[in-house]
């Protein structure tokens, strides 16, 4: 394969990114983290879920956005419209909904004085209303959060006025996925790992294939070492306005384990709608903290998502979701459980690295990250980040 033999190919394609080392300070500086809250997480579109999470009128979920110091309620109204609100009562700002998800039947009642809201966020009930001074219930609904939907993914924007619509923000990524049948795949498994790592350390560690033959030598022995591509060079890299995708091809030389071979035969669930893939495996980073991973399957493709939620400069939550074509038989489900199981082993290895990387960075023994050509997507991520932050080149440092 051409990819494997041509050295430093991507930096020739994207010369504007340079080739120098990248400062590591962004992953360990508390000052940087405080600025990130405003300059990144209130200025970008954040994925908080999918429409499939709340299929029926009144269904809701709550997202604790610690990085923006708020809790968000996303709810499907009686009119079928999905809306986002600050999860805060209009009376004296109590946290309104405490459950992670549920269905609003009638009204959502505040735990403090039981003000009630309907699924459209309107204030519908105030106990002892007559004793208040001229309150207008129609003006006291929940505070809306800018919310939009792209291919079934729900995004919120916490800035006062988004500079770009969601579609403009997604740019070429929106083009790439136009009409992708994500909705035909079902979310089957969701995991959360709370990590002692900066959210970017965790994301950067996932955002390359260079480590696969080495760090995952136990969970996928030999799998990533190809005769004509020993170091698993990428088959594709595409950099967008804020986002990036890289791809790899599968190793056709590798022999499956006995269980793997049988599972390949059982893996027949299909939606009859392939995903728009660039390689056999695509890793789309949607800035700042959302990832879509597409996998070429035998009969059909499946996908995963990651969300990296910052908690503190050195803590984050890594949220992992699997989406497969609906399984109709035990054999189909079993083959999906098998894929999930193998991938989860890899991710449990990854989580260790996130924390050992953070520990190393925190020691300040090194000031910079050294990146090779197949890590150009990490380079671009830090460039996009710096464009928002203006930390190293001036603004407020």
């Amino acid at each position: 394969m051409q990819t494997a033999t041509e050295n430093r190919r991507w930096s020739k394609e994207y010369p504007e990114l340079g080739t120098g080392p990248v400062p590591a300070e962004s992953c360990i500086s508390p000052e940087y983290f405080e600025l990130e809250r405003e300059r990144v997480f209130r200025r970008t579109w954040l994925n908080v879920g999918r429409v499939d999470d709340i299929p029926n009128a009144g269904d809701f979920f709550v997202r604790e956005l610690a990085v923006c110091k708020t809790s968000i309620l996303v709810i499907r109204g009686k009119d079928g419209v999905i809306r986002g609100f600050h999860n805060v009562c209009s009376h004296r700002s109590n946290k309104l909904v405490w459950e992670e998800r549920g269905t609003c039947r009638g009204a959502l009642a505040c735990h403090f004085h039981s003000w009630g809201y309907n699924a459209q966020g309107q204030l519908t009930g105030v106990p002892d209303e007559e004793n208040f001074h001229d309150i207008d219930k129609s003006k006291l609904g929940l505070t809306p959060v800018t919310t939009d939907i792209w291919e079934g993914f729900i995004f919120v924007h916490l800035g006062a006025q988004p500079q770009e619509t969601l579609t403009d923000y997604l740019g070429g990524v929106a083009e790439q996925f136009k009409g992708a049948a994500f909705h035909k795949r079902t979310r089957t498994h969701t995991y959360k790992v709370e990590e002692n790592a900066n959210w970017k350390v965790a994301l950067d560690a996932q955002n390359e294939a260079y480590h696969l033959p080495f760090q995952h030598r136990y969970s996928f022995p030999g799998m990533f070492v190809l005769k004509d591509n020993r170091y698993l060079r990428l088959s594709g890299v595409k950099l967008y306005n804020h986002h990036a995708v890289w791809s790899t091809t599968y190793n056709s030389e590798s022999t499956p384990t006995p269980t793997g071979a049988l599972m390949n035969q059982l893996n027949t669930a299909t939606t009859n709608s392939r995903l728009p893939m660039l390689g056999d495996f695509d890793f789309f980073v949607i800035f700042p903290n959302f990832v879509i991973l597409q996998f070429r399957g035998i009969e059909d493709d499946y996908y995963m998502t990651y969300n990296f939620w910052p908690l503190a400069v050195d803590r984050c939550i890594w949220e992992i979701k699997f989406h497969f074509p609906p399984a109709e038989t035990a054999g189909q489900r079993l083959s999906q459980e098998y894929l999930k199981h193998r991938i989860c082993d890899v991710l449990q290895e990854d989580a260790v690295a996130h924390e050992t990387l953070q520990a190393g960075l925190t020691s300040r023994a090194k000031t910079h990250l050294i990146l090779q050509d197949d890590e150009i997507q990490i380079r671009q991520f830090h460039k996009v980040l710096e464009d928002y932050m203006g930390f190293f080149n001036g603004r407020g440092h």
Partner: protein
Amino acid sequence: MAEVPLPEPFQSLEPFRDWALATERERRAKRLSSSMEEIQAFYDALFPQLEAVVAYLDRFPLDQLPEEAQPLYHLTLSLVEVTSAVELYHHPHIFEAIEPARFRRVE
């Protein structure tokens, strides 16, 4: 509650009935608390019959598995749970992984 016996052709799996666990959490805990000998014995009993077991289960739609097929299905899920331990690690645990309890299945 009396246990429904495993379907006729698969009664040799009765001694491994304690692997018929309905949730991923239980299956993972079972792997992590079992010795490699126990895991290997379970694998050796079920794997040679796995194709036949699945063929039996696949006569029903997944959401309409009859009661006597449920434990059999759960056994196959446990097999998937131990497959890497047997075929790759030769050890119940992954070598360089975070504590399993920290990798939380939430839904």
